[in-house]
C-alpha cells in the first residue's frame, strides 16, 4: 500500500468552517521513513502527548505554528515539506 495514502488533510481551526483551504501533512509517512519512529517518540521530542500526535495525523487537530516548526525540525525538513497549504480548493 502506498504511503501516500497516509497523507492527511488538516484544517486551520475556525477558518475551515468558512470553507477556507485545508493544510495537509505527511507526518505518518515521515515517521515511517525515520526508522519507523513511534508516535510516542515523536511526541516526546516535540513536547506533547501521544494523543496530540494521533489527533494531528488523523486531521482532528491543527497544531500551533510553534509545534508545527518543532515537528519539522525533528525530521530535519523545512515546514513546507511536512505541512503543505493547498489554496486551489
Amino acid at each position, binding site marked *: 500500500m502506498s504511503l501516500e495514502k497516509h497523507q492527511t488533510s488538516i484544517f486551520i481551526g475556525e477558518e475551515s468552517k468558512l470553507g477556507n483551504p485545508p493544510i495537509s501533512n505527511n507526518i505518518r509517512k515521515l515517521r515511517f521513513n525515520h526508522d519507523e519512529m513511534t508516535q510516542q517518540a515523536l511526541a516526546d521530542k516535540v513536547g*506533547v*502527548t501521544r*494523543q496530540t500526535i494521533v489527533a494531528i495525523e488523523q*486531521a482532528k487537530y491543527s*497544531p500551533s505554528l510553534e*509545534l508545527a516548526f518543532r515537528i519539522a525540525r525533528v525530521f530535519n525538513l523545512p515546514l513546507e515539506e511536512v505541512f503543505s497549504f493547498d489554496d486551489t480548493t
Partner: protein
Amino acid sequence: MSYQEKRTVVSLVSTILITVIYSLVMAQRYTATNPYSAEAFHFWGAFLLILIPVSIVARIVIYIVFSIFNTIITKEKEPAFTDERDKLIELKAARNSLYTFTAGFLLAMGSLVLDMPPNVMFILLICAGLMADVIGETSNLYFYRRGV
C-alpha cells in the same frame, strides 16, 4: 478511548451522581412551610455552601479511585502534563460551561422578576450549575473525540 476521554466520562458521571444524591439527601431535610421565611433562606444558603466542599472532596476521591483502577487495569500511565491541545480543549469547554451557567443565572433572576417564589430561583441556580458542569464535560469529550 484515551486517558483524557475516560477521565472526562468519569467526571461527567460523578458530577451528575454527586449533585443528584446530595440534592435528594438535602430535600428530605427541607422543613420550611413558607418559601419566604428566614428558615427557607437558611436552608438554601446551607445547601449551596455545603454542596461546594462536598462536591470537591467527592470528585477528588473519585478521581483517585479512577486513576488507581485505570492504571491497574490498562497499565496506562496518566499523562504527566497538559499540552497545547489539552489547554485549547479545556478553554473551549470552559467557555461553553460559562455560557450555560450565564443563561441559567439570567433565567433564575427572571424568575424573581416574574414574582415566583425564591425556591424557584435557588432551584434554577442549582440546575444551572449542574447543566454548566454537564455541558463543560460533554464539550470536553466532544472535542477530544471529534477534534478541535
